């Protein structure tokens, strides 16, 4: 039930600037995920929204009210911490009830809110246990329950799944998705470094890099139409291949020469006549690479490593210069006997990305 607006928000610790010029509108009921490399300030931004860190530049509005100097408890937010941050000396019930007790709610109100949250999260059998008697997943549910009982306008999740083991992470991720479904009016902001979480949960992903927002948009848009090389390589695994190339023919469809592999390839990206001869990076996702015998190819090289995962086979190609990241192709199904072979790879022109000076030619 809340619109959240960040305008020119920045954060600096003394002379060190960690975030600047963050502009972002988050609508009611939206689930926005902040992703980015370690140290990009995504958790800091979340903590600024929570009120645990001071906002040193710009404004934060929630429902049109400036929140910069409002104490955390009155911002209408609730936060779920990475380490759960349960009060170790209190039972599950008391953990969830604490904020309501502080707010001097009546006994009946508190009990009703706690029971309701416990039912939603299947925590009823554990209400009288101490946190130390719970498993990691149960603790995380209690942390979420503690947020739910406050009935906040905005939920803030700070890497809530990163302390769980792989299987539990998937299960809890689905639970969070169901929770969102059950509370369509709640706005949620979720910080993670796990792009699967980001892709599956988000209505919109915000990629933070180099103190700023690199790109904000629906998950598939970030995957299909990344604005920058950074976003292109950050979203998707293994990361997008980048090959040095040159624009050979401009037009509705651009033709490219790739000196390293010795081939040429087409891209469904319009270019202008004056672009001819421009140095670009040609981006192709590993999963878009296709083996070919034709003359239209992006890369030809010897296969150095073959990873057979059953569902897919990943090929790592030798590169002419060892300091470059290996070119990777992800082929569906099982392929054997490719090790040491010279293979030509190409891609559908619609799946080829072009970057000049780090920015996509699609978005200029």
């Amino acid at each position: 039930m809340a619109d959240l607006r960040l305008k020119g928000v920045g954060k600096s610790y003394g002379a060190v600037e960690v975030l600047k010029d963050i502009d972002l509108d988050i609508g009611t009921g939206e689930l926005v995920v902040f992703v980015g490399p370690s140290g990009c300030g995504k958790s800091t931004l979340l903590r600024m929204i929570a009120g645990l860190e001071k906002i040193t530049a710009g404004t934060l509005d929630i429902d049109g009210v400036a929140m910069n100097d409002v104490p955390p408890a009155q911002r209408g937010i609730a936060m779920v911490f990475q380490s759960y941050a349960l009060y170790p000396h209190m039972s599950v019930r008391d953990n969830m009830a604490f904020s309501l007790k502080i707010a001097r709610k009546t006994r009946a109100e508190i009990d009703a809110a706690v029971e309701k949250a416990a039912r939603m999260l299947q925590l009823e059998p554990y209400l009288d246990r101490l946190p130390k008697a719970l498993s990691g997943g149960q603790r995380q549910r209690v942390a979420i329950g503690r947020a739910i009982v406050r009935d906040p306008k905005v939920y803030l999740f700070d890497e809530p799944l990163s302390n769980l083991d792989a299987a539990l992470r998937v299960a809890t991720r689905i639970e969070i998705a169901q929770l969102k479904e059950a509370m369509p009016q709640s706005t949620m902001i979720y910080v993670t470094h796990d792009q699967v979480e980001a892709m599956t949960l988000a209505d919109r992903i915000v990629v933070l890099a180099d103190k700023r927002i690199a790109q904000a948009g629906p998950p598939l848009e970030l995957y299909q139409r990344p604005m920058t090389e950074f976003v292109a390589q950050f979203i998707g695994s293994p990361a997008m291949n980048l090959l040095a190339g040159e624009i050979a023919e401009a037009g509705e469809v651009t033709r490219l020469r790739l000196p390293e592999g010795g081939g040429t390839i087409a891209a469904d990206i319009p270019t202008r006549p004056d672009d001819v001869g421009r140095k670009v990076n040609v981006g192709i996702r590993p999963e878009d690479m296709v083996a070919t015998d034709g003359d239209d190819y992006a890369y030809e090289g010897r296969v150095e490593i073959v990873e057979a995962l059953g569902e897919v086979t990943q090929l790592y190609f030798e590169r002419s210069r060892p300091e470059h990241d290996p070119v990777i192709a992800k082929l569906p199904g099982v392929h054997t006997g490719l090790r040491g072979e010279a293979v030509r790879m190409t891609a559908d022109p619609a799946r080829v990305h072009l970057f000049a000076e780090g920015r996509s030619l699609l978005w200029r």
Partner: protein
Amino acid sequence: MTPLLQGLVTIVLGVGGCIAYFYGANLLLDKVLFPARGPKIGRNITRANMVRPWLFLFPALFVLGLYLAYPVVGSFWRSLYGRDGDSFIGLGNYQALFADETFRTAVVNNLLWVLVVPAAATFFGLIAAQLTDRLSWGNIAKSIIFMPMAISFVGASLIWKFVYANDADIGLINAIRTGLGADEAVDVMQVPFWNNFFLMVILIWIQTGFAMVILSAALRGIPEETVEAAIIDGANPFQIFFRIKVPQIMGTIVVVWTTITFLVLKVFDIVYTMTGGNFGTQILPSYMMSYMFRDDGRATAVAFVIMLIVLPVMVWNILQARKELR
């Protein structure tokens, strides 16, 4: 033999004796008592391994028994004898104790000390630890509060003798009284009943530093997120302190409290130096001292009473400390 040579010989004999004991006893066990050969080889190895820990523990157990367990029994035995040490008088010493007015005063005073000093020292230590936690000059403040720990009880008592001096030109208390318009200086140490508390202040002053250092470390160990979660839950600083932080370090608080309690039950120097137990300030240890060398039977009886009082606190302390370790 020069003392230096004596020392060397002692060290060589001591260390050599230890090595000889462990090596020889082990050898005896393995080769002679339960040799690992012959028809009963399996049984012999098992038995040797059952005996071995006791073999190695024996010296420590023996020394502990000699210097800790035996004295307890010995003291109790001695306390059943009269002044000359030859006449058995049964529980006569204890009867005399409980009939003695001064002993009852000492028990009541000791009870007051045990109630007030650990509570006050822990409380002030906790407050000091919390208040100095985030301060830029917090470490300087902590050092100053900790300093009295480095002073002996007698030294501290001498300092406080000045504070309590019966002279407005020397004593702080009387200077303040005079400043507020009092005509004559009073001897603070002779104010009935309250003089006990003035003595306790000295020990509180010394022990606050100890409590502060331990509790400060415990406070630092509290996960920061629980405090942040409480901030978001709307708790004010007092609620965070008393409902989030203090409960999380309760185990440490109890250990600090009980540790100071032992100290209080043993302290005698302060009373001995300040009042000598006069003016109704007697406590058990100084009461015991007053009988020492005059009537050892009576003195050991007091010692035994003190031990009985300390025992339950000590058991509780050990249990708590173990819980903390886990």
